[in-house]
């Protein structure tokens, strides 16, 4: 019974408020648009010479890269949303957002939530023009989601699941529930030398260098620019 009287009181209060608003002419307030203060962060990268010195790209290549970068992100920084959207455009079949999230964290070395052009170009320089050692180290950093220096099975599961998500639904053969898990088991068998359930950087580097396939495929994107 107390609930009923409380409801009645609330209803009465609301009614009184409505009458008041009706009388003062403020019944239908214009919805004050929340001014999303988009912090117009306008970031300008360091000079061309500096970037050329820091990375393995030539001036022309940096120019081409920057033009593409600026076109998509006029403010000079990429945030995670834009990153995901751009990456998703390349994979129309499935859902690339999880993998893009991990990629973003790998690019965003300072964990600020936004990727500047310098970070972008540094990472690309490693991936496209770096030594095998550097590439493998970058990949290890990508897999190590919590950046603690070790890859455990859960992290690997997340990564592999994200990769499989990009395939989408219409695959042949049909994706089973435990395909990622099997894939991860295969991976761990190969990588985890001392079978302690985690993969350290050294184990990773060693195992990858033993595998010809991986070595070959790392050179695949050498001349992407």
């Amino acid at each position, binding site marked *: 019974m107390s609930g009923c009287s409380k409801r009645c009181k609330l209803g009465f209060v609301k009614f009184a408020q409505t009458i008041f608003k*009706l*009388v*003062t*002419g*403020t*019944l*239908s307030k214009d919805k004050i648009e929340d001014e999303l203060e988009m912090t117009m962060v306008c970031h300008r990268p360091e000079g061309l010479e500096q970037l050329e010195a820091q990375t393995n790209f030539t001036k*022309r290549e940096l120019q*081409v*890269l920057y033009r*593409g*970068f600026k*076109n998509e992100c006029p403010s000079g920084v990429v945030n995670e949303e834009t990153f995901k*959207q*751009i*990456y*998703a*455009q*390349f*994979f*129309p*079949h499935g859902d690339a957002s999880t993998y893009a999230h*991990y*990629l973003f964290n790998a690019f965003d070395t300072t964990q600020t939530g936004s990727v500047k052009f310098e970070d972008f170009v540094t*990472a*690309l320089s490693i*991936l496209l023009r770096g030594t095998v050692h550097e*590439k*493998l180290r*970058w*990949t290890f950093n990508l*897999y190590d989601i919590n950046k603690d220096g070790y890859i455990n099975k859960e992290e690997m599961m997340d*990564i592999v699941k994200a*990769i*499989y998500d990009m*395939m*989408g*639904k*219409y*695959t*042949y*053969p*049909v*994706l*089973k*529930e435990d*395909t990622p898990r099997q*894939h991860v088991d295969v*991976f761990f068998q*190969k*990588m985890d030398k001392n079978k302690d359930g985690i993969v350290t950087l050294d184990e*990773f580097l060693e195992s990858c260098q033993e595998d010809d*396939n*991986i070595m*070959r*495929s*790392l050179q*695949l*994107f050498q001349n*992407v620019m």
Partner: protein
Amino acid sequence: MAAGVAAWLPFARAAAIGWMPVANCPMPLAPADKSKRQDELIVLNVSGRRFQTWRTTLERYPDTLLGSTEKEFFFNEDTKEYFFDRDPEVFRCVLNFYRTGKLHYPRYECISAYDDELAFYGILPEIIGDCCYEEYKDRKRENAERLMDDNDSENNQESMPSLSFRQTMWRAFENPHTSTLALVFYYVTGFFIAVSVITNVVETVPCGTVPGSKELPCGERYSVAFFCLDTACVMIFTVEYLLRLFAAPSRYRFIRSVMSIIDVVAIMPYYIGLVMTNNEDVSGAFVTLRVFRVFRIFKFSRHSQGLRILGYTLKSCASELGFLLFSLTMAIIIFATVMFYAEKGSSASKFTSIPASFWYTIVTMTTLGYGDMVPKTIAGKIFGSICSLSGVLVIALPVPVIVSNFSRIYHQNQRADKRRAQKKARLARIRVAKTGSSNAYLHSKRNGLLNEALELTGTPEEEHMGKTASLIESQHHHLLHCLEKTTNHEFIDEQMFEQNCMESSMQNYPSTRSPSLSSHAGLTTTCCSRRSKKTTHLPNSNLPATRLRSMQELSTIHIQGSEQPSLTTSRSSLNLKADDGLRPNCKTSQITTAIISIPAPPALTPEGETRPPPASPGPNTNIPSIASNVVKVSAL
């Protein structure tokens, strides 16, 4: 693939290095960028006006004239520029499209000239940005009407799968244009509402005298006739109300709605009259009830959009109306009090009390001025004039607000309808183009397999054959191919997927078809389990034979009733957010007799490799690094 995103392709490909350690199989070769061109400025001379841009800017949209090799036809060797004998004004918009990814429609431009230019440059008008799209479509429609061109605006005939009878009825009630029966019902009810209202009105008209008594209204003179008419109308209204009640998806909500209350109020007096006896005092009340019959006129609001908008406007202007009423009340009370005390002195004043003065104040403030009550004292006259002046002000102020509200809502309503109609067509076309991009990959994959096979036989001339895709397309496809290799699964399109499901379920359950397809979640699991069961039955002897064939020929890939996705229809140049969910429904009920065999692309294996490819994907064993495509032969 969209606009400036093509510039991010190097990044996407670099990021693919993240998949490499995870993959078990070798990656396909990257397409070689044979033309090692540095990015250069090209000059576009359009009727004398020179535009300059980077070559890569134009190559963002490879399926337009400027982005493809078609522009080579316009290349002028002497001046080393591309010359187009077209309108430079429109070309500005076209070039801005390449630069920014957004196509704008300039208002001063003639719509057909603009359309011609877009057609010439191979750009779909559907990608006009949101800012200009409405204007474009409006102008286009105007133009079409002017030319008496019957542009079919297709009526949205949603073929909903087997609506229940109740749902069809409800739809027929809400939207009378869905079927002829609904239209007939609509007009019949409208007619009867009109008849009912007219009879109510005519009933009270004096009809001529019956000799020996005073003049009677028609209602009493021809009471039987009117009673029959009334009965008929109420019958119709009752039936209509009951039908609506039956068909309503939520009866409780329907009962609470305004229209149903009006319906009930309109027909209750009749029934109450039937039940009521001819008791003297009660029949007085009954006569008053008949006034509610006038509410039948509100039933017209179902038939008139304008009435509904008026009602909605009044509702939305409740604030202004409330304020108006309140301020009027304030003014009335003030002036009534003043007038009463001013006229108190004069003799035989009509202003007997303050409430009596209310009538004078209202009549004066609304500038009616009946003249039945007039002030006689000088003070009264002064205050009376102040009253009428202030009345004009107080009333005139909120009214334009209400009027403008009405106008805004009315136009908004019109525009909303327009936009709704346009949106569907537009989204459909954009969706088609988007699936074109994913289909482009599948199509080129099938073509590409042929190329790879030929490449390995070492005929360099044939490498260039069939390379209709631009470099960016081939790089994108290579990226998708790498993803396939990483996960050991292939992309297929929706129809093939459903076919596979169908076939696998057909194989093992020939008798019962539909139950296994009903639940979608169960579908994938049944599919996969059946798939693994089936493939283990493949005799090993089958495999080498097909593998041998793979080098020489491609077996036909039979796709039932699919469109022919050509590379040129991949209008993939749309800057869209990838948020279309592929909505699958494995509901195909046709049996297919397809023989599908996908030859294994022998990417890096030497000739004469005799190890058979594994029968099922993702096994627990470490697959040796060779081609691992499953060869599936299914025959029904």
